[in-house]
């Protein structure tokens, strides 16, 4: 800007320092936090194997799990709503999938596809109820937290007389869709790295000579894919602008013709989709479904999103930030284990970081909106 132009602006608007400019990027907290936790655990757990191939794979998988549900929660939160039923949805979709394939004898791929459609319809129902009744999504999805969890336990016991349904591994044999969720990629590359001695290999047992990390699980691929697609959708498309608008001020958005209801319902469906991806990967990997899976995951997803800089009130946030929040979450959870720390301290840390993140976000919001 030239001097003449800046003279024409309101002289009371101070020029913004690069620091403040960086501060209003939603990802900043996530970036700083990520650097901080890596430094911290590099110092206290650096020699524990946390940063060797196997250790890295360990916390990366955990982070990727958080990432998958965080992306859904993030876009939904930016659109101005919550989904507290995510955790129950994880248990529910896994159980539906297992009952259909193991108990009803459906091919696994058909069970997976059906579950995806069914769960996204439940997500749409969530969204429809929120939009039509005008009730806070907090209450509507809290109801579904209980409804879905109850149905999951009831259905599991009713059909199989137990709450853990095994036998999915056998059904996954030769199935074309199961490897998309439970397989591994780049196995050849990892074998090659093992042969060259760049990563550790097993020295004993039946797998002697094979690398300890034999590929990238599809879970991680899904996580990265969802993060990249979610980020592009939010920042580079028309629909992304509508997501911001729906969460920023639904009425103002309606006045200029944004289909707010459609946006919100789609985001509820996307949240259900992410929960189902999480559940499918888990079911295929473990070879079983359990009725109590996914407990508290909804809150963990929301924490990742908030650490990532999104505002609880909607209209502001970043998918990349949420992904970094998931990394922080995963690294700390597993890092405390590597550092031999008392694992219950993890929750103390979680509460503390959540509080700090929310306070930071509120402060940042004031900067953006110029409130005093």
């Amino acid at each position, binding site marked *: 800007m030239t001097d003449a132009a800046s003279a024409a602006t309101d002289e009371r608007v101070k020029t913004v320092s690069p620091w403040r400019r960086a501060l209003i990027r939603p990802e900043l907290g996530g970036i700083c936090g990520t650097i901080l936790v890596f430094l911290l655990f590099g110092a206290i757990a650096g020699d524990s194997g946390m940063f060797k191939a196997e250790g890295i794979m360990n916390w990366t998988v955990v982070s990727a799990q958080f990432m998958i549900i965080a992306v859904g929660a993030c876009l939904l939160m930016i659109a101005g709503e919550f989904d507290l039923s995510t955790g129950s949805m994880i248990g529910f979709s896994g159980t539906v999938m297992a009952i259909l394939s193991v108990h009803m004898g459906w091919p696994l791929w058909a069970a997976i596809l059906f579950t995806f459609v069914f769960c996204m319809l439940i997500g749409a129902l969530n969204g429809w109820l929120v939009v039509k009744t005008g009730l806070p999504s907090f209450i509507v999805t809290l109801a579904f937290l209980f409804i879905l969890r109850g149905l999951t336990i009831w259905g599991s016991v009713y059909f199989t007389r137990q709450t853990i349904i095994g036998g999915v591994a056998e059904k996954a044999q030769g199935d074309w869709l199961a490897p998309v969720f439970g397989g591994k990629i780049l196995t050849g590359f990892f074998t090659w790295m093992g042969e060259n001695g760049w990563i550790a290999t097993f020295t004993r047992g039946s797998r002697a000579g094979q690398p300890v990390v034999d590929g990238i699980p599809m879970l991680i691929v899904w996580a990265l894919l969802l993060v990249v697609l979610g980020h592009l959708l939010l920042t580079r498309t*028309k629909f992304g602008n509508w997501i911001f608008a729906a969460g920023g001020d639904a009425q*103002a958005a309606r006045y200029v013709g*944004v289909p707010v209801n459609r946006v919100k319902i789609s985001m509820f469906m996307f949240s259900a989709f992410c929960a189902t991806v999480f559940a499918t990967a888990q079911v295929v990997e473990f070879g079983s479904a359990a009725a109590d899976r996914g407990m508290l995951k909804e809150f963990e997803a929301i924490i990742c999103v908030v650490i990532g800089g999104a505002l609880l009130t909607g209209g502001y946030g970043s998918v990349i930030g949420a992904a970094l929040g998931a990394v922080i979450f995963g690294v700390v959870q597993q890092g405390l284990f590597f550092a031999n720390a008392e694992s219950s301290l993890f929750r103390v840390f979680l509460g503390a970081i959540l509080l700090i993140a929310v306070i930071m976000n509120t402060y940042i919001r004031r900067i953006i909106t110029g409130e005093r």
Partner: protein
Amino acid sequence: MTTPIVEMRDIRKHFGHVIALNGVSFDVRPGECHCLLGDNGAGKSTFIKTMSGVHRPSSGQMVIEGKPVTFESPRDAMGAGIATVYQDLAMIPLMSVTRNFWMGREPEKGIWPFRNFDLKMAAEVTMSEMKKMGINLRGPDQAVGTLSGGERQTVAIARAVYFGAKVLILDEPTSALGVRQTANVLGTIDRVRKQGIGVVFITHNVRHAMAVGDRFTVLNRGQTLGTATKGDVDAARLQDMMAGGQELAELESSLGGTI
């Protein structure tokens, strides 16, 4: 003078037993600023909501460029070139000026599934439109929250004009603003009028109306008390009509001046 773009003939609107509008006639011509004055409860908001397609009139006729029309929704009104800028619902503070400007009409480029929001073009247009309106932005990604109330109104007006509004309805654009910001918004109204757009300026502040208005219509208790042209009427007379006369005159004399 030229024919009106929008003409509202004898509009009545009842909400159950409440008669909100009891025969209001009003028209806007291209390039004029027609002020709609009225005290709180006079029916101003009901009337503009009828004009912008939010309410449907109980009776009466709406004519646009000579053709009778009925609006089912605000979208219909927008399609017919009637844009409304609401006092506090114009903008989303957390979003950038560019994203606000294009909200609902985002330009796209590329082929599906790679179709994306053409942010570069959107930013360029926003910057140049803002410059025309006399707002210098730090950058196209500056959040609307950092703008003053007057600037927000101006962005909303610029947006409506850019997207081809023929009639611009401004709902009390100056009522929450300070002196200098008010002057800026009134300046914007003048600029828009000179582009041939008909402006409907709703206010209860007679001085703001006198500053830019070409014609003045006073609404009281759901009825029009007549339309006056600039020069035929003075501020005190408008004030009297708005308040319904007597009491205010007494109050004014005891306070010693025009309120």
